[in-house]
């Protein structure tokens, strides 16, 4: 089905021009979109869509809605957001979280940002936390320099090219030199329409000596038709800076989640990824760190649940280029009710990357006889002074552990939940407390 598709009819020049025109974009952004569109046509014609991962043949490209305006403009007060949209985010606890512990919040509904606000004290420090659509107009020099240039070029793969053509909404963050943002910033993305496509773009620039923690959440109601999420996250961590990116993705189980996340880390920079993947029908997600600068570091922690009808193909990539760089990748996955969970990782140590240290650990629990777990870590080492280790375990919950808990009064189901909770807890601990509690609740719901 996919091979015979004419993508020029599915994703047209007219659609891309319409998106750009509705956003009143400068000509350079329209040109960027059109170049990405040409790249998408070229890649899909020459290579087709990737076949090395989960099956994408049921993704109905012809019926995806590539752009759906929320029919409301961005507001900075929840009172001004239309009731039906506000109700969605109320149920998700976003306004409450903003009030209690966040430094800023962005909320996206289908293709547009409906709410955006940053606390005054951060504004006074020069922190920029904007809707990406707005940033194109207000910060054109920064956007031209960083948007889909060095980090995630449009020709990375078919879905980055698609994203480059039809991206809409998302977050732009700039942290000035020396500013350490003390409260997390958050964005929440909700796909409401059936057959929705969401292509938000997150661009985070952490200038020298600065630091930021950023959280993304996402959800969508379940429909029979498939939805597509092909977002993109680009993070630049400059000299001596730190960035922590946390994402809890709980898309509905008809969603194809084909997200691209990548960071470039400069001298002495530190990048931390924390990803929790619960939902979606298919996820293909490999947060990547390019350790360009000497002494730069990256840590990637991931938790994945694959339940009935789900195929989670996730992992992490690190490319060591500078000297004395180090990376840690830890992944925990749980497969149950026929779910398929794959770890797919890549560690590269380039020729001049002296004294690299890299450690990868992936553990998988298969809870029943019908579920599957695969582990495919790749290591490409070109420098003899590297120290690279990888270890993985796959297994089920031991009968002894279950017996021990049941002999202390736990039911079998509770014993399972407890053991699984303990299995993923080293990663959950990296989340802010409120999100750790929420994530544990989601885990329990999945186990029921």
């Amino acid at each position, binding site marked *: 089905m996919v091979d015979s598709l004419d993508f020029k009819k599915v994703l047209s020049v007219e659609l891309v021009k319409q998106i750009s025109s509705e956003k009143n974009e400068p000509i350079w952004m329209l040109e960027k979109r059109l170049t990405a569109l040409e790249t998408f046509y070229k890649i899909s014609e020459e290579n087709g869509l*990737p076949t*090395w991962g989960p099956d994408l043949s049921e993704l109905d490209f012809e019926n995806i809605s590539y752009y759906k305006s929320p029919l409301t403009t961005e507001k900075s007060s929840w009172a001004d957001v239309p009731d039906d949209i506000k109700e969605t985010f109320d149920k998700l606890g976003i306004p409450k979280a903003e009030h209690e512990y966040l430094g800023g919040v962005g909320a996206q509904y289908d293709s547009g940002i409906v709410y955006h606000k940053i606390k005054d004290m951060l504004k006074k420090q020069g922190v920029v936390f904007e809707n990406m659509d707005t940033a194109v107009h207000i910060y054109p020099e920064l956007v031209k320099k960083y948007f889909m240039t060095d980090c995630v070029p449009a020709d990375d*793969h078919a879905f980055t090219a698609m994203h480059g053509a039809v991206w809409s909404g998302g977050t732009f963050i700039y942290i000035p030199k020396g500013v350490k943002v003390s409260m997390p910033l958050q964005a929440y993305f909700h796909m409401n329409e059936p057959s929705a496509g969401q292509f938000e773009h997150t661009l985070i620039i952490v200038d020298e000596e600065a630091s930021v923690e950023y959280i993304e959440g996402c959800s969508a109601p379940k429909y029979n038709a498939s939805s597509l999420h092909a977002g993109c996250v680009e993070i630049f961590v400059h000299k001596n800076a730190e960035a922590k990116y946390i994402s809890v993705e709980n898309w509905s189980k008809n969603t194809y989640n084909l997200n691209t996340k990548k960071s470039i880390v400069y001298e002495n920079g530190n990048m931390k990824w924390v990803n929790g993947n619960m939902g979606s029908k298919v996820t293909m997600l490999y947060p990547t760190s390019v350790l360009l600068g000497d002494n730069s570091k990256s840590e990637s922690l991931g938790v994945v649940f694959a339940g009935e009808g789900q195929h989670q193909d996730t992992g992490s990539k690190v490319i060591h280029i500078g000297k004395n760089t180090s990376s840690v990748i830890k992944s925990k996955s749980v497969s149950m009710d026929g779910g398929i969970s794959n770890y*797919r990782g*890549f560690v590269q140590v380039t*020729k001049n990357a002296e004294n690299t240290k890299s450690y990868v650990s992936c553990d998988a629990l*298969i*809870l*029943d*006889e*019908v*579920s*599957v*777990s*695969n*582990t*495919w*870590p*790749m*290591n*490409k*080492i*070109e*420098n*003899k*002074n*590297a*120290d*690279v*280790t*990888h*270890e*993985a*375990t*796959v*297994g*089920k919950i031991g009968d002894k552990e279950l017996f021990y808990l049941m002999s202390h009064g736990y039911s079998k189901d509770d014993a399972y939940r407890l053991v699984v909770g303990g299995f993923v807890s080293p990663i959950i601990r990296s989340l802010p407390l409120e999100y750790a509690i929420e994530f544990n609740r989601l885990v329990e719901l999945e186990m029921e």
Partner: protein
Amino acid sequence: MTNYGLKVNSKYDVSEYEERVMTTAGDVVLFESGVYKIYCDGDTFVKHNITSNLMHIICISVRDEIKINIEAVGIISDGVSDVYHKIISKNKNVEMNIKVKSIADNDAKIIYRSSIGGVENSTGMGNQDAKFIMLSNECEIDAEPSLNLASNLIPTTHNIAISGVSKENIFYMSLHGLNNKESETELVHSFLNS
């Protein structure tokens, strides 16, 4: 074979090798490079040297309650070594082990891929352990150990370690009167023989 969208470079074209199929049990020592498919009808221990050549070995169990081991050792000083080890359990209580030690020097390249797998309803256990030492900055190691399990009754682990010769160990040996080259030689021999 999964290649993550990257082509694992090998100068060897697998299609040029005729697949040699055997059903056997016991010690199997392979000298000639090539592609081997071994149906294991009992405890099977496959051994080979790692050389600048292609060696693809696939072992498949055909009986319950057996052990399948693959061991490979070698030093490559030039050329490309393309090694692929795969063990599949289709039975009950199959113990699968892969152990590899190899050293790359000069401009040698080692491509190492492995897979331990179990089909639905199979049982047993698996362990894969691969260690590589790089002696020069011109050599390269591409390693992809993988686990492919459709059964939750095969607890499996795998480990891979890639490094140079430890500078601390060389320093320790130099304190005992050996020069750098002698220290490195001793450490390499010790690594391969341990």
